[in-house]
């Protein structure tokens, strides 16, 4: 088992776990959004924004995966051999966004559903309805930050 495999496993984790979370979150919110549109088509832009909020975790996962692939030279400039230890470190660095992305997107989706219901009854309360799901996203952002900092740090380690 080479270091490269471990690193790419990490990138895969980051992408698909955060992606699964976002799909579930956006999916749930989308169902609610479509329901509201049946009654109030004019709210399209508002419910669309609320619906898209849980989509970001998937993008954070993609971002971390991309940084990992770049760091191990799969895309961009080649960097030579990756030791098993280094590969394992990359795998570990990918885990925060993988798990945080998965869970936070699902729960953010639930908040988005609630927000969509709020907006359908009181369209002028959009600002508040937007903030509640954003609270959940904080934890995905923190995980993203740690993943990025870790990958950046591992790159310069000589092991």
């Amino acid at each position: 088992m080479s270091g490269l495999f471990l690193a790419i496993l990490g990138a895969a984790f980051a992408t698909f776990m955060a992606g699964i979370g976002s799909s579930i979150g956006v999916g749930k919110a989308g169902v609610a959004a479509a329901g509201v549109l049946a009654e109030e088509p004019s709210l399209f832009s508002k419910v669309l924004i609320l619906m898209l909020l849980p989509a970001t975790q998937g993008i954070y996962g993609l971002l971390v995966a991309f940084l990992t692939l770049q760091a191990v030279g799969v895309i961009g400039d080649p960097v030579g051999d990756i030791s098993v230890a280094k590969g394992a470190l990359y795998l570990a660095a990918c885990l925060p966004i993988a798990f945080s992305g998965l869970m936070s997107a699902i729960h953010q989706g639930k908040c988005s559903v609630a927000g969509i219901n709020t907006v359908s009854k009181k369209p002028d309360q959009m600002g508040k309805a937007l903030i509640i799901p954003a609270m959940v996203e904080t934890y995905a952002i923190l995980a993203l930050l740690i993943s990025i900092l870790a990958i950046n740090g591992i790159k310069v380690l000589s092991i």
Partner: protein
Amino acid sequence: MAILQMQRINIYALNKHCKEILETLQRMGVMQVEQVDIEDSVFYREDTSAFQASYRRSAAAVKSASEILSTYVKYKKSLLSSLEGRKPLSKEEYYKLTDNYTEVLKIAYDIISDNKKIIENKAKIVAYESRLEALSPWQNLDVPMLQSATKTTTSVIGSFQEKLDYETLRLRIAETDPDLELFDLEIVSSDDNQTCIFAVCMNKDIERFNSALRKIGFILPAFDSKLSPQEAIKELKNKIERREKLIEEHISNITAQKDMLDSLNFLEDYFVMKSDRYAQIDNISYSPHTFVMTGYVTKRDSEKLSKLLLEKYDAEVELEDVDGDDVPVVLSNNKFTEPVEGVVLSYSAPHRKEIDPTGIMAVFYYIFFGMMFSDAGYGLVMALACGIAVKVFKNMEQGLKKSLKMFFWCGVSTFFWGLMFGSFFGDAVQVISRTFFGAEAPVIYGITTPIWFNPTEGAGPTKLLMFSFLLGIIHLFAGLILQAVNYVRNGKWLYAIYDDVSWILLVGGAVFALLSTEMLASMAGFQLPPVWLTIGGIMALVGAVLILFCSARNKNPFKRLIKGAYNLYGVTSYLSDILSYSRLLALGLATGVVAQVFNQLGAMIGNSFVGVVAFVLIFVVGHVLNIGINALGAYVHTNRLQFVEFFGKFYEGGGRDFKPYAVNTKYYNIKEDI
């Protein structure tokens, strides 16, 4: 950056001017009408709910007529029509349009009745068609579908709910009643679901024949007619044709009115305004010849309003400065900060005793948005799009205009931070020159080379993280200072020291002390001399003591100490508040890196004709996508930093929104002074 002084306004005037005054007030849209609480032997109130309901009904009728018209006539509507806003009308134009309103209303009802007839005819056609379908298996039969008899024989017409051929049918009949012989039958049609037959039987056996058939599942047709199926089908087809002609006639009646859409829309607005006006009458007290109305108006508009009412309608106007919790709040800001008023109001209007946070918030708002979006190309696109839209669409609704202006300034800030971090559509310029020109891009400050530093390389992320925390601390301190200002304005300057200066000392001192230690110095890239450890320590200690002993307002010293200790524990929330600003870095990196991903994807095919086409396609689609999702993220998280971290420090809110009595229409905006 201020809350406007409000005035209570009382208007006394003659009843004969009531209608005109209400119309003028509506067009000016500067007064919030409140209920007058006089009701005695002289003053009375009018109940206008019946009128309101009738006008709202008319408005609904006109609206549905206009909707019907737009389904039959395809009106061109541009993509950007939602930016256009309501068409302005002067008073004169308005009165001219109201002249022929009975005609337009009649047209509206005609359109509705035509539409009703179309629906009725369509329903009829559906009914005919289902009968046609039921008849179609019988179309080869040339006698009427009735049981008819001659002197010696009787005909039987009906069907079985299965597919049968002649032989099986005969066999089944023979099985059921072996003695039955004197009959003949013919299969008219047969498909998977049913078999239709025509049979003739001698009169004396007809009872037995019928019962034998019933036993094997024979059913009589659901319809009878003196016409043969062939004729019946022909007649139904004729009827359908007639109905279709009728529908066409009604449709052409409707489309003949295609030029009336504007008039219909105007009429809807007219009825809505009228109904709103009558709703205000509920708030007025009448005497036999005069009336009184009251409400709030900003001091800015009050002089103009009272002069106008006096000159035109001889109305007596009383104005009086008011302050209090019930008084609505109107904010006033300069061009740069006004656009974010909407963000403040979407949280809550400030209450009358506190300072309007819009001005200070605007500065942080633009900075934070720019840092999270941080791409010069995206900022340019956003600022240009918003700026042009505001310039081109003059009649845009105020709320939308404010939002676009806000995003214009956010775009400018994004552009600035993009230059600082050297991101222009990600690394588009480098990728293009490397892929298609085979050379490294020249150094262009801000576009290929960061003016400040590159946050994705080397120590960049940590540097930006530290900078984000610094901005966060400044933001939090700004919140504390605003709270201190509120305390001082209300004469409680000691509270300002206990609640705000104390925290600034504690947090500021802790930062100084930490920066002089090895641990943080390696992250920050610099170390304060050791003396700062002492200075910071003393500052933090003074702050902590102030919080411990003074921040609680309890008389009982013991309880006060415990409460103070609890407040001191709140230092953990400061830690999480500051860490929360790390999103400035994370979202900024997200924009930049995703942009790079798209550039790299685009460049994958290489330098060829197909490669260029693919690059352009991926570039456009990818960056549009990235702008969309990251602008949303930047917007939401900027709001969050303001609402949670910043407002959490000082903002009370809970002020009453100013809801002026105004022209509240959909298509036209009638202004008093155009």
